[in-house]
């Protein structure tokens, strides 16, 4: 993933999950059934909204950090893809898990949240640990 594409995709991620906040607010205002009367769904939609938005912002910070730290392109491209995918999985996993929940627990999509979190953590660790000398110079993938 190129730096430019990462920046644009991260801004889209922030925009989408921030916009979902408008949707949640509208459901409160409209007293929507299946929302106000469903605490489990409400909790997980809120978690998705908050995590997706914040992790989108984290991606913007990561994009800046990768430039500042001169992470080798062979790593940087994959870190960008991983960080963005991780943020998407966490935010969407919470939301879909809440929308498709069972009697007491979120639905199966919640299982992608740990996967997304692992990818994100790995991205952050790699950004922190990989040095400019750790990879051969070359075009970013």
């Amino acid at each position: 993933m190129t730096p430019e594409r990462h920046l644009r995709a991260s801004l889209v991620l922030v925009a989408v999950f921030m916009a979902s906040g408008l949707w949640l607010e509208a459901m409160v205002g409209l007293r929507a059934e299946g929302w106000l009367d469903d605490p489990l769904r409400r909790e997980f939609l809120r978690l998705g909204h908050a995590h997706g938005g914040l992790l989108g912002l984290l991606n913007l910070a990561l994009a800046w950090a990768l430039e500042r730290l001169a992470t080798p392109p062979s790593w940087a491209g994959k870190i960008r893809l991983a960080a963005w995918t991780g943020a998407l999985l966490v935010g969407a996993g919470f939301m879909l898990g809440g929308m498709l929940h069972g009697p007491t627990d979120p639905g199966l999509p919640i299982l992608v949240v740990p996967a997304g979190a692992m990818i994100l953590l790995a991205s952050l660790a790699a950004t922190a640990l990989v040095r400019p000398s750790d990879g051969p110079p070359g075009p970013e993938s």
Partner: protein
Amino acid sequence: MPLRPGLLLFGPALAWVVAAGLGLAWTAGDSRAWTAIDRHGVAVVGSSTCSECHPDAWQSWHASWHRTMTQRPVPGGGLSVELAVAPEPGELLAPFAGETFDYLGFRATMDRGASGAPRIRVKSDSGVGETLLDVEVALTVGSHRYQQYVGEIDGVLWRLPVAWHRGEARWIHMNGAFVEPEGESGSLVDYQRHLSRWNDNCIFCHNTEPVPGLQDSGQFQSAVGELGIACEACHGPAAAHVERHRNPLRRMLAGRDLGDGSITHPGRLDAGRESAICGRCHGQRIARDIATVMAHGDGFVAGDDLAEVSRPIFADSTIGTEPMPFAMRFWPDGTPRLSAYEYQALLLSPCHDSGAGLGCNHCHDMHGDQPKGQIRAGRSGAGACIDCHDLDSDHGGHRGVESVDCLDCHMPEITYGLLEGMVSHRITSPDPGALVGRHDQPDACTQCHVDRSRRWAAESMAGLGLLGSPAGLPEDPLEQRGSRVLLDLHGGDPIQRNLAAHALAQPDASGSLELRMAWLADALEDEYPSVRWFAWRGLRALAEAASQAELVRTLAEFDYLAPIEARVEVIGRIHLQLGTPVNPNQLFDDLSEARAETAIWIGE
């Protein structure tokens, strides 16, 4: 070996996804996670365990009267009953601050013992004689209408003779809550008529997983899963359910309709089985094997066939050699006329259709937001019927009359229980013509048209385009002499009199307030306390509606459980204020004399 960025970044997540997928597949295919489990004889885990995963359901149950069916006012040791689940502190409705209550020449004093535990003491000779009872309250029973108190005497629990009436915030004697003659002043037998044993009576329908524990020696070793009607009374023992659902993958798959044989979900049972869960308590029954039930409980687990452990009591049910001992609890057509027979009434209803039609769950919701009656949202009034019946036509001829809905005609208030008039749960169509000339059963029409005769009701049916027995009606001289409800009020048996007084007090009943108040004032003289209660409460409601402040004040001095001399004095003043004679008319005299033949005695 060079580091591979893709593997490091995505590898752990991919491993997690593979592991989770395998776990899901294994759990979904593991029969131990889904198959039915025999839960008979399994101990309950308690409602607090259920609350961990089902907080909303727990909250709605916690707000219900089911929870407070039995409470322990002072938790701790000293109770002879074995409890599988430690109770939370119960709510005591009565003050127990030294109140006294005199009845039949005995004085009950309600205060607290040295330990602070609530206590009830009874002395003879209006409180100056010997102490007949001095016992701490071990358990409370009920809390919606009135709260009864249970004390332990020599290792056995007994329901004590006085109770706290919630609506009136006063003490009452239990004789006043049952439909039976008052008893003689000074008679200890009459005073202690309802000093009944908890271990083999109240335990059943007021607790979860009750076991009376009657021993061969005649002693009791009673045990209760959880005090009150808690989660597992309707869902069955939940230990296996809890164990299975420790697996989070199992919980996630729970909503995918793979079945769950570790718990009963009443809403997923057919109407027959679902209603049987309620019928276990809301339908008086006779055990198939009484000795086993008294020793070990009935063994019923929610979802079982109730008929395997008991048979519901109907009018023609027998026990022992006594012929039809329960007939008094039913109207002549077999409709139950007491509460706690709702299950039988449902079974008799065509809408139930032998379990293929509607069940309790159709109108009631144990986890709704309405504790009173626990009516399902949208299922009150006409809402109860519109799923199956088209109400577009001008059915019943009462369209436009806001106060009339389906239930008024098809589930009239012809059931007595707990000092209240209640709807009949036998869903029927009114047919006053079939009852003309009979004086043993109320009809839906005249329960609202209280100033009208049954003949008028029968003749009006055709005018409204309704089917009913033809008006080729036998002449009955008594029928000519007054409204149907008035005939019941003066000449019916005590349950008819209770319900007649209840009908007269309804805000939307026909007839002038003055007329209804005069009739109710006559009923204040009734020899049955429950009739006097209905008459007094109804008269008070009508006096308030008529803004007769002085009469309301006088009525406040009337105590339906007071000695007759005290009552007569107040009744005289009430009649004076109403401008009615104390001895009303020949009809009253004629019917009152015949009333001795209608004496009934319905206790436990």
